[in-house]
């Protein structure tokens, strides 16, 4: 008999407690971010799309060798001082955003940017070409690059 009344009391009081908690949410700001107008604040070491600064890259191919899925395509012509970089491409169909390519780079030209929203309509558009061979052929040797005014001293 007493249990009947304690049950009723527990039901009513727990419902009241619950409802007082939910009503407080009216005065709280919602946690949703209205993408694309509002974006999340990303941590500094966030691994977004890979960016390669062609001013610094000397086609040493360390990044292509480090890549676990072989998504970096590098083509060069010539040898020694006449070596030119004709193609540097990253295939984002394969890239797993592990940042192993950034870890070996001697000139720190390859970095992970904070971009993450590059959606496209065709799979071919996800192969990013960083060198346009009709417009530029990038010299690989350091002396050639300094002569042509092409190379920037990497930061220590």
């Amino acid at each position, binding site marked *: 008999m007493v249990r009947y009344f304690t049950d009723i009391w527990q039901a009513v009081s727990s*419902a009241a407690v619950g409802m007082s908690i939910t009503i407080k*949410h*009216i005065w709280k700001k*919602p946690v949703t971010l209205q993408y694309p107008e509002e974006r999340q604040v990303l941590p500094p070491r966030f691994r977004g799309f890979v960016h390669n600064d062609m001013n610094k890259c000397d086609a040493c191919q360390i990044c292509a060798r480090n890549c676990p899925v072989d998504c970096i395509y590098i083509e060069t012509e010539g040898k020694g001082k006449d070596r030119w970089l004709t193609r540097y491409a990253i295939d984002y169909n394969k890239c797993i955003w592990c940042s192993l390519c950034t870890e070996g780079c001697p000139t720190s030209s390859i970095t992970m940017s904070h971009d993450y929203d590059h959606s496209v309509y065709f799979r071919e558009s996800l192969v990013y070409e960083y060198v346009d061979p009709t417009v530029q052929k990038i010299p690989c040797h350091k002396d050639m690059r300094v002569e042509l005014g092409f190379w920037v001293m990497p930061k220590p």
Partner: protein
Amino acid sequence: MQLLTEMIRGWFGPDKMSDQWVIIWAAVTLATLMFIVMALCALIFTWLERKVAGIIQSRYGPMRTGRFHGWAQAVADMLKILGKEDIIPAEANRFYFSFAPILVLLGSLLAWAAIPWSPNFVAADLDLGLFYIFAVSSLVIIGILMAGWASNNKWALYGAARGAAQMVSYEIPLALACIPVVMYTGSLNPSDIVIAQQGGILNWFIFRNPFLFVGFFVYFIASIAETNRGPFDMPETESELVAGYHTEYTGMRFAFFFLSEYANLFLVSLIAAMVFLGGWWAPIPGLDFAPALTFIIKGVLMVLLNMWVRWTLPRVRVDQLMHLCWKVMIPLSLICVVGAGLWMMWRGQA
């Protein structure tokens, strides 16, 4: 209704139309008006439900469809539902399958006729109004049973049987909680019930009698169970888990069930506002310039209360639901009736 008959008679000339035709035209116009208002209200409340659910859950509701807070979401939902294929299961009973949603919608729409929106406007000024409303709401139960049986689906039948049991059981505390109010006014006419509450907030029935205060909460809980909402949505939750009484319904037929749920919600909220919260009277006697608006605002506040309860409390198991009704709500409502009567006698108002 009277006003409309006068208007129609005046429009067509005094002798051009016989009395029966005037009444028929007036009735058809009012019914169409009620139907349109009911459909619009149901649409607006689907949007409001999603916004309230969002606010309670620390998120926005719809925000993108229609620039301002997604108001066009309801319209988009309706258009989507109209575009769906109309499927009737192979072995289903075609007539009952088609008729059930109409019956469910009818149960809600008929009851809307007796509600007094303002001192001058009530579609059907019935002396039996309150009794009529509760009686006609029972058509929804028949519709649900018909839907469950005609679907040729054992889970639908199961859900429909539970739904019918729940709705039939909770009609008793629903009506019993309104009995003390009838004892005060001596009339079942909704307009009389509202008129008896004039004179400011302390004259509203909820505050006139401590037993009526408890009775309001009994009515509120019974109304949540009656509309299959909130913590008492066993018949519909089966549709999330296994199936429910409207599992085989698609397209416009499903839209009828959906519309009738929100129409029923607004109906019971309006009845609560009318019977307990003073109808069209404003809380302070001087502010009575817009009675219909006041009434609708009270109804909407009750709907918001209903939604607050739905998005807070977890679902009740079906045996707990039945225990609550028969062993807690009915004794409580009977105590309210007797207690209210004794209070009235003690205060000399009987």
